[in-house]
């Protein structure tokens, strides 16, 4: 579970000893990046690519000589998707492993549970989870790189507004992602002049949603928005076509993987969704500032592990923001690193272009999401 060099333990021990007698010495010879991810368990589709990405890039950085001449060391714990374990591992990373920065927390649950520990210890923390609650209200020590569900809802509503849609039927999964997406969609609708005319839900393991869609069919909705991930959205998509409902269907970034197209098959044609540019890296204009970064990440990941996922991309963004901040700070002093993360400007990542500030600990604008449409079984960009 945990990889570390025993030699480093010695160094750490000596350092600890020196610190105990009050010698003003740099913390250690390596930069320690701590992480706790859901590599196994139900959220492993998040944690698995995240860990692979962190390992891959730390290896690459060390091969190039590290940061400021120091090697980067990754200390990892697997939470199995359990928020309680996440808290324990966060404490261990802070107190026992004495890491310099933490990049991790695959799920919103584990991130939110571990955040108080980071604040107490004054540990710069970049979360890889989606919920908007992580950065709103702003916690001085916590940052995040993935897009929020609020952004997804906003992006969808903006696209609907352009098409003149004002009445929307909402259908969401009853898992954490679907529930949170539903809440954000309901809250944001009035801002875009949109009325929610139907608000349906389904169980994440349900096998048929035609009852809910029959109700939607009877409403005067002009479009359907579905928040969820896993098999649910694919079944919703198939059921909508089965019932002959001819309304535009919007999905969330929760289905932004080829798997969704494969599962829903022909029914997915014409479905629109907001997603990270990583999915359509090869279709972007050469002038797009993100293209080079996306292609480089995609090639590096795919040559080692197979198809990229946006989740691994979030880990890349988090790691790079953290290491660049340490590089700029020329130190691993927690407060300095935190200030430098907050000062991140124009960082081109896989999720978008990050501009953090005191009031924005994610730093992504709506343009970080691209609106995609599924045509002929593939993603296409909507302009």
């Amino acid at each position, binding site marked *: 579970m945990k990889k570390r060099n025993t030699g480093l333990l010695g160094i750490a021990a000596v350092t600890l000893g020196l610190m105990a007698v009050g010698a003003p010495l740099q913390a250690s010879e390596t930069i320690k990046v701590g992480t706790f991810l859901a590599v196994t368990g139900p959220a492993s589709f998040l944690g698995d690519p995240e860990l692979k990405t962190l390992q891959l890039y730390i290896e690459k950085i060390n091969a190039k000589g590290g940061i400021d001449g120091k090697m980067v060391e990754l200390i990892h714990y697997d939470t199995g998707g359990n928020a309680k374990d996440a808290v324990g591992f966060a404490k261990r990373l802070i107190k026992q492993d004495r890491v310099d920065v933490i990049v991790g927390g695959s799920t919103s649950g584990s991130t939110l549970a571990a955040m108080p520990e980071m604040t107490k210890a004054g540990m710069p923390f970049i979360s890889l989870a989606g919920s908007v609650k992580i950065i709103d209200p702003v916690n001085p020590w916590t940052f995040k790189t993935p897009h929020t569900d609020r952004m997804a809802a906003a992006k969808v509503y903006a696209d609907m507004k352009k098409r003149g849609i004002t009445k929307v039927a909402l259908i969401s999964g009853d898992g954490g992602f679907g529930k949170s997406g539903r809440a954000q969609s309901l809250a944001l609708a009035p801002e875009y002049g949109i009325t929610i005319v139907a608000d349906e839900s*389904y169980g994440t393991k349900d096998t048929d949603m035609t009852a809910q869609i029959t109700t939607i069919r009877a409403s005067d909705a002009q479009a359907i928005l579905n928040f969820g991930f896993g098999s649910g959205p694919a079944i919703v998509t198939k059921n909508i076509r089965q019932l002959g409902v001819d309304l535009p269907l919007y999905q969330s970034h929760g289905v932004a993987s080829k798997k969704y197209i494969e599962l829903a098959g022909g029914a997915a044609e014409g479905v629109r969704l907001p997603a990270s540019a990583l999915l359509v890296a090869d279709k972007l204009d050469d002038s797009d500032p993100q293209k080079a970064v996306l292609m480089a990440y995609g090639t590096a990941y795919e040559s080692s592990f197979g198809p990229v996922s946006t989740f691994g991309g979030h880990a890349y963004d988090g790691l790079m923001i953290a290491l660049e901040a340490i590089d700029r700070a020329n130190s691993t002093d927690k407060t300095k690193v935190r200030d430098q993360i907050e000062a991140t400007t124009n960082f081109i990542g896989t999720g978008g272009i990050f501009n953090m500030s005191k009031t924005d600990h994610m730093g992504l604008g709506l343009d970080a999401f691209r609106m995609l449409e599924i045509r002929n079984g593939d993603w296409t960009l909507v302009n």
Partner: protein
Amino acid sequence: MFDQIIQFLATGLSVGSTYALVGLGFAIIYNASGVVNFAQGEFVMLGAMSAVGLLAAGVPYPLALLVAILIVTLVGFSLNKFAIEPARGASVVATIIITIGASIFLRGAALLIWGKDIFSMPAFSGNEPIEIGAATVVPQNIWIMGITVVLVLLVRYFFDKTLYGKAILACSCNKTAAGLVGINVKLMLLTSYGLSAAIGAVAGLLIAPIAFTSFDAGTMLGLKGFSAAILGGMGSGMGAVAGGLVLGVLESLGAGLISSGYKDAMAFVIILAVLFFKPSGLFGFKSVDRV
């Protein structure tokens, strides 16, 4: 409104049929041994996953389905042979716990073999929706209902009319007495596990084209099938079928007419109510203890 109700009923009957098949599997093993086999949902998952795996390996469609049923039947046999039979002296509760262990084991094995992805399976005969009155269904819904009816009748015939079926029932009434009149109790138990595994596999094959499958798809279906069996009366095959259909229709009507958020809650509240007034289920026999 009336049109909508027709659609809700069509959906409910189709979903209910799959619950019915899973429930029937529960009832068969319960009939033979008084044990609730909590690995029943895993049989459903294994059926679908094996078929998907075989299809991916290039096995032709109908053959893949048959081989998948065969594989799961063998799994059912082995579950009995290697987990249930060695513990034959154990109490019913201990055996039930063994089946819970088996379900965790099978889920883990599926995870190792096929990974944690969700898989789709092509439908038996296309995806073109069919309009029946005011309701729209896909051909797979009709396959589900049709095959369920056929299987239910076959199982009923097997238990009511054949010597073999009656011998299994005899084992459930009194193992010792059944053994004394020359029934091979071991073989009957083995048959009942194989039979319910095969029925579970068929349920999995029927539902995979509309609801997909993954290593953990069996858990929820197992739970719904168990509810169906309880609602109908544990040990009554026809009761399990009726229970499944009632559960499916209740869920669908609840989701459509009242609120989709309380769909599962309503179904379970009704089950609780039924069990409160009729603890042996809708079609169960009153159990009488002789003192």
